[in-house]
């Protein structure tokens, strides 16, 4: 779950990382207690805010109000700006990149740092990026911060500040269950302060059970995505017209690959995950119909998910709402005979294999 910059900075402040004084508003008239010069920053969960005009300076409080009213309501890469963060403007002497993330290969928290901050880190050449993996058995130790501070070219008091920030960023990452905690730029000001110019934090959504404060945050989702989130299913809208429901990301993707081979194109990717609740299956089907696919392809291989559970949910959904789209159902695995019988009794013709199902659905979608 991505956090807005202001929320990310709130977490950073809580963990002792210096951030500029700031205030978040959703309307210019809410601006109080601001001192100029300030920066006005659109709060949207996408990159490229600066280029899109979502980050602008304001030399006076009056100007900050005027700029805020321009930025609020802007569209940036499809996201509308509902809030702006107004911050003290920093006197930048140097910009550093500092990030901590979960690294799959090393199975640990990985620090990334570069003396070339303030730009997209992917554009920085490799030899200008230091990667330091924190061994999980060892945990963060002061030498990690020392290595980073030295690599980004800081000395003395600034190196000490930077090293301390590394320790706090690690603590934030662990304690808040962040998948990513990034400060870009980490600013060294002209008067020698090291301070987070920007803040990006992504929380592991699997950890929200232990973060009541974060679990209450709203994400920037489309209405359908929001419903899917509430049902704990993966739901992605795509360009085609076949609604694919499967269980498991791999199988769902393989189903997409299969219809593609037969000329079909998916319009919805819906991964049920592992479930054994007919109600969830029913709700997923209803969600699917809201996306109005031309044909629905159900591909279930049961393990935790029992086939008859899926069939029951499917039939309940069809009963509750006359589903307009034709359904191709291919159900395999635990209790498959019972499930097939249920579908046959309801007048549907279950497909027997993935290829056959993909072919049928594709033909239907093209016809």
């Amino acid at each position, binding site marked *: 779950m991505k956090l807005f910059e202001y929320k990310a900075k709130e977490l950073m402040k809580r963990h002792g990382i210096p951030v500029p004084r700031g205030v978040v508003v959703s309307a210019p008239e809410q601006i109080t207690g601001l001192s100029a010069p300030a920066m006005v920053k659109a709060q949207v969960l996408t990159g490229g805010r600066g280029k899109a005009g979502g980050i602008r300076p304001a030399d006076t409080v009056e100007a900050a109000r005027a700029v805020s009213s321009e930025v609020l309501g802007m569209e940036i890469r499809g996201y509308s700006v509902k809030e702006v963060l107004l911050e003290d403007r920093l006197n930048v002497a140097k910009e550093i990149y500092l990030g901590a993330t*979960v690294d*799959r*290969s090393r*199975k*640990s*928290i990985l620090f990334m740092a570069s003396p070339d901050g303030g730009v997209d880190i*992917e554009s920085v050449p490799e030899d200008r990026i230091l990667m330091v993996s924190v*061994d*999980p*058995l060892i945990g963060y130790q002061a030498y990690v911060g020392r290595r980073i501070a030295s690599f980004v070219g800081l000395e003395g008091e600034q190196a000490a500040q930077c090293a301390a920030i590394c320790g706090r960023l690690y603590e934030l*990452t*662990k304690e808040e*269950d962040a*998948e990513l905690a990034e400060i870009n730029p980490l600013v060294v000001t002209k008067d020698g302060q090291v301070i987070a110019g920007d803040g990006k934090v992504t929380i*592991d959504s*699997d*950890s929200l*059970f*232990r973060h009541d404060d974060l679990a209450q945050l709203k994400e920037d989702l489309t209405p359908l995505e929001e419903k899917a989130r509430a049902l704990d299913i*993966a739901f*992605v809208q*795509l*360009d085609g017209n076949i609604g694919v429901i*499967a*269980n*498991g*990301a*791999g*199988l*769902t*993707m*393989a189903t*997409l*690959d*299969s219809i*593609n*081979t037969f000329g079909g194109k*998916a319009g919805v*990717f819906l*991964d049920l*995950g*592992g479930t*054994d609740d007919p109600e969830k299956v029913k709700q997923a089907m209803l969600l699917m119909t809201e996306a109005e696919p031309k044909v629905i392809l159900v591909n*279930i*291989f*049961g*393990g*935790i*998910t029992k086939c008859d559970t899926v069939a029951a949910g499917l039939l309940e959904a069809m009963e509750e709402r006359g589903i307009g789209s034709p359904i191709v159902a291919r159900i*395999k*695995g*635990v209790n498959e005979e019972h499930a097939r019988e249920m579908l046959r009794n309801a007048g549907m013709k279950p497909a027997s*294999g*993935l*290829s056959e199902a993909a072919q049928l659905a594709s033909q239907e979608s093209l016809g």
Partner: protein
Amino acid sequence: MSVIVDKDTKVVVQGITGYQGTYHSKAMMDFGTSVVAGVTPGKGGQEVHGVPVFDTVSEAVAQTGANTSCVFVPAPFTMSAVLEAVDADVATVVTVTEHVPVHDAIRFVAVAKAHGVTLIGPNCPGLGAPGTAKVGILPNKIFKQGDVGVVSRSGTLTYEIVNAMSEAGIGQSTCVGIGGDRIPGTGFIEVLKRFQEDPDTKRIVLVGEIGGTAEEEASEFIKGEVTKPVVAYIAGRTAPPGKRMGHAGAIIARGRGTADSKIGALEASGARVARLPTDVPGLLAE
């Protein structure tokens, strides 16, 4: 023969009194697995399908000789359950539970490794060796005994492919679902190493998906160390880049991690890559 499980495998099911634990304990026993104990704190003294339930894993191990744990406890308690199994000196822990916090996984994966425990998962279907034992939730009916070792990051997709193999008359030595989480206890390479060493595994199937670089790293290993023929399938060839597809394993990042990158690396390693999951049996038969 088989890898990770063998005829001496004795399973303790952590969370045996829960719905999944009870259901799949029965399924494992039906497969022929020796399920000797269950653990649910506070329910020691009960029985499930005739299997004694203990309060702690150490008691279960002491009294039944269990050497392999299968973990079904809810995600918030999974770390503690895995650490308990490691602490009780079992040789293998299969963690089925999904939605385990990633920082919990980082911790218990590191501890399991330090203790020399083979950890499969979290968020995995487990493993099955036809004729020997199954630990996890793979459907019993998909298997057929044979000489192909299957290793996969996916759950249901593995069932699909294994089922297709069995229907085509191609049996398996062991099928290992390593799980789709970002921090798997056991990765492709560890399982490939075991398949390479296992005399009863003659051919290998690797099932990967987009996201991460595990398949690229496995390709390096195949190139250098694996002499047995490898057939692979990578899911997500037609998934739109940048979309999150169900779990974090499917976030496409930078150059590596794409289907093209993985398929390219596998082909360069000498593996044959199937276009569709249903093509795998055909490539194996060639």
